[in-house]
């Protein structure tokens, strides 16, 4: 049986905030040259660096033509450790505990109803990370000092609080911002815990995020929410307005999984609802966090400018460049995540086997889909099953990326991976036999009915570029200005259009708070792999996608935005609010200056079959 590989990592004592006396902290602070703050009047001391803070490197100049050479497939796939619960002191409170150093926020909504039963502690701080044994350690920013951040594993029905401490350097120079906000993508969480892009806060403070871990539709389904609304594969990441690309590139992201009595994480046991998909985490349920980076000759990350990150020439999975993963002859569940910054991956397996797609953006599909290649857009998640039982011990299978990255609108050279497997993303080595109690049934779940009569409004979002400014419906993102208000408890149809066909850019559009269903793409019904719930909707140049969304349980500010991290940093976002009234918004003119129909009241909500044949009419 393959053992989950644990990465070598820095001391994480500060994760639990223990063992550092104030005097030691002062000494360490002084030794490391960090700012130590005395706030004795307030009667609290700040969490301190318990380990030495690596100095910030300067980015090499001029731009390297390529990263240092690394030998592929010489390091095992790291599995991020799980985050252990930790008793918080002071205990989390409904209102922001400013006196103890909490950053400002609105009161937690429905706090008494979902009192946290478990709490966690996370510290954002600089660390050194080895991306490849052929390269020296790289300076990163990471949750708890490990990259990717620890995986948080939670259960539906058990509310939690995660306390984020910001210990990024106060004397920071270069790319990235030491202010930050963490978004749980795509938690059904209240606005104040959603990591809104404008709600960033700086080093020395902490902030509690309340994750009630309820099913969407909790209020309308008797008995604690509708398990058919479950979403299971999440990721958390920095969402700091205008610095999301650089802060994520520096390493600020990790994964978050939710289990319940259907998807238990175990292959045996549980009640009659249990699916028994391949499990457990780290054994047969494996996260794969894909990113690409470019490195300087000294092994430090290269940034094209102090606010821009390059298309990487190193394929990185869970923080390792081109790793191998030893598998047994049985089924595995891989949770694929594209953590950006911009690359669109298209995965295939070197032996031509299809992926068995079981979940899109963390939502189980009603039926698994066999698919030979997977297009994974930034921030999307795909849960796939790969079965190695047909392989012989000693076999190797490669995961290939067959999509070139476009630089200067021309594809980067990407040798045919079938000829040159050294360009593969990772390698699976079949090394042993193992019992397999897992089952992947033909029916994974049944969705609640999609009732288009619930639709009260059809809202149009035109994604455009005008005079070098990204605009949505002709408007520029302002975190203090909602451009639409939806009524809690209602449903709407949202039409998303990519208005810049000539750019060649696909916008992976992400909607916070709720999972949606694609009603149509360019007037046609969605293909099977898009038939499930999602929260990232890739809109290719010139395309138009219709989405059904409900807005439930929470109030406050949320966003719809392009999840190409560079585009969202360039203001390709809209703030929309959940309130008690529907606004018929938005801008009176679209980006071309023509009258913008924006949101229209919908006296006769269309039925599904009509929508498929009415392309363009709603405009």
């Amino acid at each position, binding site marked *: 049986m393959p053992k989950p590989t644990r990465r070598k990592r820095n001391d994480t004592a500060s994760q639990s905030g223990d063992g550092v006396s104030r005097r030691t902290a002062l000494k360490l602070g002084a030794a490391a040259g960090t700012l130590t703050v005395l706030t004795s009047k307030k009667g609290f001391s700040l969490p301190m660096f318990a380990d030495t803070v690596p100095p910030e490197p300067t980015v090499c100049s001029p731009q390297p033509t390529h990263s240092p050479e690394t030998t592929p497939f010489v390091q095992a796939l790291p599995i991020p450790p799980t985050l252990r619960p930790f008793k918080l002191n002071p205990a989390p409170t409904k209102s922001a505990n*400013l006196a103890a150093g909490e950053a400002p*926020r609105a009161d937690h909504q429905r706090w008494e109803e979902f009192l946290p039963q478990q709490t966690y502690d996370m510290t954002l701080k600089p660390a050194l990370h080895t991306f490849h044994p052929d390269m020296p350690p790289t300076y990163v920013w990471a949750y708890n000092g490990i990259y990717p951040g620890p995986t948080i594993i939670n259960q539906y029905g058990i509310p939690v609080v995660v306390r984020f401490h910001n210990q990024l350097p*106060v004397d920071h120079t270069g790319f990235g911002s030491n202010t930050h906000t963490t978004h749980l993508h795509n938690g059904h969480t209240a606005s104040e815990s959603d990591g809104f892009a404008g709600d960033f806060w700086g080093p*020395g403070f902490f902030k509690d995020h309340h994750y009630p871990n309820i099913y969407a539709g909790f209020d309308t389904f008797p008995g604690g929410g509708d398990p058919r609304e479950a979403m299971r594969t999440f990721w958390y990441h920095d969402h700091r307005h205008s610095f999301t690309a650089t802060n994520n590139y520096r390493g600020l992201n990790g994964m978050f999984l939710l289990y319940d009595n259907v998807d238990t994480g175990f292959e045996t046991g549980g009640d009659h609802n249990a699916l028994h998909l391949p499990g457990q985490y780290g054994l047969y349920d494996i996260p794969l966090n894909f990113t690409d980076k470019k490195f300087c000759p000294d092994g430090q990350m290269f940034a094209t400018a102090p606010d821009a990150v390059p298309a990487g020439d190193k394929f990185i999975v869970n923080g390792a460049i081109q790793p191998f993963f030893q598998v047994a002859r049985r089924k595995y569940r891989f949770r694929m995540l594209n953590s950006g910054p911009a690359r669109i991956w298209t995965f295939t397996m070197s032996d031509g086997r299809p992926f068995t797609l079981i979940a899109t953006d963390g939502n189980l599909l009603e039926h698994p889909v066999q698919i030979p290649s997977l297009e994974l857009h930034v921030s999307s998640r795909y849960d796939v099953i790969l079965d190695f039982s047909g392989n012989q011990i000693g076999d190797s299978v490669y995961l290939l990326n067959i999509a070139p990255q476009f630089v200067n609108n021309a594809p980067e050279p990407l040798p045919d991976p079938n000829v040159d497997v050294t360009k593969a993303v990772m390698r699976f080595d079949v090394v042993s036999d193992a019992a397999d109690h897992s089952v992947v049934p033909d029916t994974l779940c049944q969705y609640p009915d999609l009732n288009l009569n619930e639709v009260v409004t059809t809202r149009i979002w035109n994604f455009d570029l005008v*005079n*070098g*400014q990204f605009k949505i419906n002709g408007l*520029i993102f302002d975190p203090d200005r909602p451009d639409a208000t939806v009524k809690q408890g209602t449903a709407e149809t949202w039409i998303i259009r990519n208005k810049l066909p000539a*750019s060649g850019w696909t916008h992976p559009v992400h909607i916070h708070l709720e999972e949606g269903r694609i009603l149509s793409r360019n007037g046609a019904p969605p293909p099977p792999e898009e038939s499930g719930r999602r929260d990232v909707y890739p809109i290719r140049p010139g395309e138009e996608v219709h989405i059904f969304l409900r807005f439930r349980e929470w109030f406050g500010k949320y966003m719809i935005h392009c999840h190409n991290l560079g585009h969202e940093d360039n203001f390709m976002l809209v703030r929309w609010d959940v*309130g008690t009234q529907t606004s018929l918004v938005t801008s009176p003119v679209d980006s071309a200056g023509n009258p913008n129909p924006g949101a229209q009241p919908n006296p006769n909500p269309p039925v599904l079959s009509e929508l498929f044949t009415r392309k363009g009419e709603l405009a």
Partner: protein
Amino acid sequence: MNRRDLLTCVLPDKSRPGASMGPEFYTNAVLHTHENKPVRFYDDLIKGKLTLINFIYTGCMKSCPRSTGNLAKAQKLLGDRVGRDIFMYSITLKPEEDDPETLRDYARSHGARPGWLFLTGNEYDLTTIRFKLARWDHPMLDFDLDQHTGMVRIINDTLNQWTMCPTHAAPQQIVDAVSWVEPTKPFAVRLRENYKTQARIDRETRDAKARGAWRA
């Protein structure tokens, strides 16, 4: 090569911030201000400063008037910091049309105050600078001058930190973006700001509930 060029090339520049990318990145191209004064791009305009840089041309009727108007409002909001520790530069995209005199009239007509320079130079230098500061990596956009009129680049050379803001954003947003590249304020100052922000959040939430926008 004149003597000054020789010196800046050879001697270590002690006044240059350690984190800065320096003239190797920004170039030291000689530009001319709207007062017809020659200036070196890095040494005189960028080095050790906090700067807002955007691109315009005086004949641009579609988006530039609003951009320049917004920047004038932002200059007002930034107050006497402009010219002291914050500097604003509007660089022409059409040097063949915009000589210093044309730019001087443009600056006057938009109410630009001291601390805000309008710059022209030779086309080669200006294109190099534009590609350094505002490159799309997309030929359709990089060679379309009108795709360069909408953003203001904000640079803190001392910290080597950059950000940007659409020039059509609210002037206060431009001012906010400037603060994103400023040095982190002392903890006690930020703690006081937290109390102010909290008071604003509480007020907004109360108002939303009173309006009935949120259910209490």
